[in-house]
């Protein structure tokens, strides 16, 4: 495939290197002449100086026969425009834009970009997978009493899902004071309140029982 990469920063450089290693024909467009020199010295004559958003520059890069254009500059708006110019002026079959602001993912889709890659989103998803739910969070210390108010989100696989509050073995001194359900409505729990998955529990606890409380609620 002939692939045009817009932006010769770190992402553009390593992407191009990988594409070349895989046997593709790749060309980088980069505005900064120093970066152009670096890339040409290290990868061969695969970098052209120019703004990858300008139709004339893209034309000079042979965009008409490109199978794909990947815009990986650090600026979302530049990546958007580069992809749109490639797509609408030169009928490049496939365009991919790197984005930093995760909100732009849906916007770019609406504006006709085939694919977006958000490093912010990738990292977030990884964290959410590794840590399936937020751990216990400190909300407030109640002055003089030595007690803390904490929030815990109940993961779907917690052992207490479906159990009544009275059947949860809470550590001494800990009290569940409020439950916020998926509907975002707050309820004061009674002994018979059943815990649901994704419930947000606000509890009062002495700091030394925090670990035990978290274990009791999240089923660790």
């Amino acid at each position: 495939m002939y692939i045009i990469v817009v932006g010769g920063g770190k992402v553009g450089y390593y992407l191009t290197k990988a594409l070349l290693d895989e046997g593709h024909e790749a060309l980088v467009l980069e505005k900064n002449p120093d970066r152009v020199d670096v890339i040409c010295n290290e990868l061969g004559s695969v970098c052209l100086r120019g703004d990858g958003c300008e139709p004339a520059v893209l034309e000079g890069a042979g965009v008409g026969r490109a199978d794909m254009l990947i815009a990986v500059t650090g600026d979302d708006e530049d990546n958007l425009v580069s992809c749109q110019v490639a797509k609408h002026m030169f009928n490049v079959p496939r365009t991919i834009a790197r984005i930093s602001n995760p909100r732009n993912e849906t916007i770019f889709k609406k504006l006709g970009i085939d694919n977006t890659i958000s490093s912010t989103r990738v990292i977030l998803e990884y964290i959410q997978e590794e840590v399936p739910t937020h751990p216990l969070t400190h909300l407030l210390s109640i002055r003089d009493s030595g007690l803390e108010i904490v929030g815990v989100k109940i993961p779907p696989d917690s052992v207490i899902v479906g159990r009544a509050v009275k059947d949860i073995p809470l550590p001494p001194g800990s009290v569940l004071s409020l439950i916020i359900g998926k509907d975002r409505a707050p309820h004061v729990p009674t002994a018979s309140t059943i815990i649901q998955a994704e419930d947000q529990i606000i509890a009062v606890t002495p700091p030394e029982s925090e670990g035990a409380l978290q274990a009791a609620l999240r089923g660790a």
Partner: protein
Amino acid sequence: MKKIVIMGCGRVGAKLAQLLDADGHQVTVLDINDYSFRRLLPPEFKGTALLGDGTDEGVLRQAGIEEADTFVAITQGDNRNIMAAQIAKHVFKVPKVVLRIYDPARRELYSKLGLEAFSPTTIFAQMLKEKIEG
């Protein structure tokens, strides 16, 4: 009276804001640099100056884009203007969207794609040419 959001408080953006404000419109001006707002001198300017990036959907909401009648993208960056204008038009369905694109080639493309875009490069060059040729 129209609700107008202007992105970019440079010379042109600020001048436009003042003209529209003087005509009694409700004007909000966005810029990423608060130093730019020095161009909007009270008490003459009675509109709103908002610090933020107009290519960010959240900032546009804050600027009142959902109720706006008109959105103007007039920053120094063609691509920023293009992106913000498209968000205003396609995401927020603002009835009237106008923008500046310096690059004539990009102006041509985005006009074809339905944006009301002006290229000062073309307009000014044409004007000078007419002056020179008489």
